[in-house]
């Protein structure tokens, strides 16, 4: 869809229309997040297209059992990044998406540059072991994936017999392989982010991790076509491109990811500010032009029809998907008479949504409203990185009375919480000895709470506030913290949120009613994930890059029109 220049909104008005942290930083709303055009996968593919990246499969040494290695070189204007994929023949009894697994159907490293034969051999001894192996600073990302056995076998069988797979079967699952952890930033000896964060193409959040996932998607199709070829010989065919494009990469994510948003306050703030600024810019537009309103209506239609492909057996989420469908119905009825000719027509639409739709619906409308305004908002995708170290240092020259005032202003929600009640402290976050992964325990039923991770920021601030109230007002914070180092963490968080207002979740993550998947969904939506399929309150399956162009077709396609399925794809289901 061509974009037409829109009047630039007034900065002051944009500021006025920013949704406040009190509204945006609630877990219920964060847990209803949808991808937007600022999401990282979208930004990556815009760059790949715009800069004319070339992707070539330079190595394919896979045997008839599906065991071997493939290398995919992604060549950008400055550098080459290579995905090295090790394929395995995994017996079903060993197939587990959990971190406690020790073997996978495939394992991957994203290599900085072009690997030599020695690199491929070195990594063959380490990458398939994942957490138990060691990488080097020449590797940026480490990941692994398991087959969706049902769909993989179906597709391999069909292709081997010379026919295309059943589209309905493909849509039921959505991917051939499901990744679990996608590690970066120095884990297991990988390169530190500092090594590449100054690079234009790699400086944004999760750019190298999600570039790796896009290349993994190509591998998942290559390996299924390989197996079909082994089985069917001359009868075998390759996947039809339109069917192939429906396939994303799955991901199964558990609690390991949940603390991230709490432990990266500056980054969370940067993501939220970018998205909220994009929304506020659109709402502040004094006029809506025909091209953008038409684009909006078209994307709404696609989003609505695309819900047919959002399958989840999870009761809560499937109800929410049904409600979202009803919301989008309501929106369509509302739009039948809407001419977008009022004062600030997008703001009117937003306000209508805010008072008529569920949180799922409201957040979907935000995403849809931002969508046709690339020219107005895409610069914000470049402002979503943040260095936590920049906000680490405590200003100890502040008086304790000032810190107390900041705590009351920014943590009013926490100070109003009764942390003496069992419900409000029902949970504790800990790291398990067995797998060194974050877990969630029941404080009043299980041992280990004395070792809880410091994620309950609200409670820590409440405890510090009580101590500050006993201090003379003119005590220097440095003096207070020298006597009370136990409040150092809370003091830092209060000072951070005073500078970065979207840095804190405004909910108690220790409460009995807290849903960890709300944190997961928020983060994954910023990645650009879709079709959230919770498997419990603490882990979720998603699909990444579904409907996006593959490396071998992106040059000839719109790289930025895949957030919702195309009409013709929808019709063929």
């Amino acid at each position, binding site marked *: 869809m061509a974009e037409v220049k829109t009047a630039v909104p007034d900065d002051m008005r944009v500021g006025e229309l920013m949704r406040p942290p009190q509204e945006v930083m609630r877990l219920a709303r964060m847990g209803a997040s949808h991808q937007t055009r600022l999401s990282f996968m979208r930004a990556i593919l815009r760059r790949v297209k715009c800069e004319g990246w070339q992707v070539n499969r330079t190595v394919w040494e896979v045997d008839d059992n599906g065991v071997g290695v493939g290398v995919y070189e992604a060549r950008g204007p400055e550098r080459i990044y290579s995905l090295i994929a090790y394929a395995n023949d995994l017996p079903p009894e060993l*197939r587990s998406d959990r971190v406690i697994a020790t073997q996978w159907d495939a394992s991957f490293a994203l290599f900085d540059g072009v690997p030599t034969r020695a690199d491929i051999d070195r990594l063959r001894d380490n990458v398939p072991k994942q957490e138990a192996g060691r990488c080097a*600073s020449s590797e940026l990302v480490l990941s692994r994936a398991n087959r969706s056995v049902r769909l993989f076998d179906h597709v391999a069988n069909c292709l081997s017999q010379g026919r295309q797979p059943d589209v309905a079967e493909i849509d039921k699952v959505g991917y051939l392989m499901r990744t679990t952890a996608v590690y970066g930033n120095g884990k297991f*000896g990988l390169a530190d982010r500092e090594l590449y964060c100054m690079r234009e193409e790699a400086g944004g959040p999760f750019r190298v991790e999600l570039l790796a996932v896009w290349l993994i998607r190509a591998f998942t199709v290559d390996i299924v076509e390989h197996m079909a070829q082994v089985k069917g010989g001359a009868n075998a065919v390759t996947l039809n491109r339109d069917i192939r494009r429906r396939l994303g990469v799955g991901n199964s994510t*558990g*609690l390991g990811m949940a603390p991230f948003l709490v432990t990266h306050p500056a980054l969370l703030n940067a993501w939220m500010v970018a998205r909220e600024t994009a929304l506020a810019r659109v709402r502040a537009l004094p006029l809506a032009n025909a091209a953008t309103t038409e684009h909006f209506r078209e994307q709404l239609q696609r989003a609505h029809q695309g819900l047919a492909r959002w399958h989840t057996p999870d009761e809560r989420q499937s109800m929410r998907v049904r409600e979202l469908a009803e919301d989008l119905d309501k929106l369509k009825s509302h739009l039948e008479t809407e001419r977008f000719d009022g004062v600030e027509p997008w703001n009117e639409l937003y306000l209508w949504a805010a008072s008529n739709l569920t949180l799922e619906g409201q957040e979907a409308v935000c995403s849809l409203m931002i969508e046709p305004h690339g020219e107005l908002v895409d610069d914000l995708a470049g402002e979503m990185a943040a260095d936590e170290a920049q906000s680490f240092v405590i200003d*100890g020259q502040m008086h304790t009375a000032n810190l107390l005032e900041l705590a009351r202003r920014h943590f009013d929600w926490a100070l109003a919480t009764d942390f003496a009640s069992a419900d409000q402290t029902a949970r504790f976050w800990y790291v398990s000895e067995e797998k060194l992964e974050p877990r969630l325990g029941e404080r009043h039923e299980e041992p280990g709470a004395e070792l809880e991770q410091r994620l309950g920021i609200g409670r820590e601030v409440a405890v510090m506030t009580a101590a500050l109230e006993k201090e003379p007002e003119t005590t220097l914070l440095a003096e207070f913290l020298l006597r009370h180092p136990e*409040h150092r963490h809370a003091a830092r968080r209060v000072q951070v949120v005073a500078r970065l207002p979207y840095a804190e979740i405004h909910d108690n993550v220790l409460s009995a009613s807290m849903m960890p998947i709300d944190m997961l969904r928020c983060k994954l939506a910023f990645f650009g994930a879709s079709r959230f399929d919770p498997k419990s309150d603490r882990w979720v399956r998603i699909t990444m890059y579904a409907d996006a162009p593959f490396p071998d077709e992106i040059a000839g396609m719109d790289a930025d029109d895949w957030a919702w399925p195309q009409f013709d794809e929808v019709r063929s289901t």
Partner: protein
Amino acid sequence: MKVSINETEVMATKAAWGAGRPWGLAQEAGRAVAWLEAMRLPGAVSLLALLVASDGVPCEQLRPVATRDGVWQGAGPLCPVLAGAYISDSGGELFVSSLREVYSPLLLLPFASLACPGVLVAWSTTSIVANRVAASVKGSGLSDGIAGTVLVSPAAASEPALQTVTHSLRTGPVDIADEIWEALSAFAHRTYVPASESSRLKGAGAGLTDND
């Protein structure tokens, strides 16, 4: 073993926490060790010596109680992370200070040099002039386990000593001796909660088949 800077910071933070430092202070220890190692100065071994020497000692006994007239003194030897955090909190207000008895004095350096444009940190065997990204080290006591008196004072970045830079900030990976890494891991290990059958299933919320 070769480790990334990020792994070093995570390990140092967990180890300090495991040794009983409050979380916010343990984060300071992690950041300090990461900076030292990135400078190719022995941060990990210094932290280990500190944690071993002060294991089980409450912060109350490790902090300077009198900080007047530039002389900092505690009930016993000082924790350089506690004292360093105080230096850091004081920002540009750093004055000439003399610290009586300090464990692993090298650990004061990152706090002072990140808070001030240029600093001098010196004890009997060693003298270091540093800024955020470079240091000039003289002497042989970088890994001293304890120092009688440590002088911390501002130094002009143009200080002649810095013109002979011996250490500068670099990216990872860094080499940390296996036995040091393992000893830090043992402190970190104290922060992990042993698994039970119920936590295996409930804690991560899984337990379903993935053969689908």
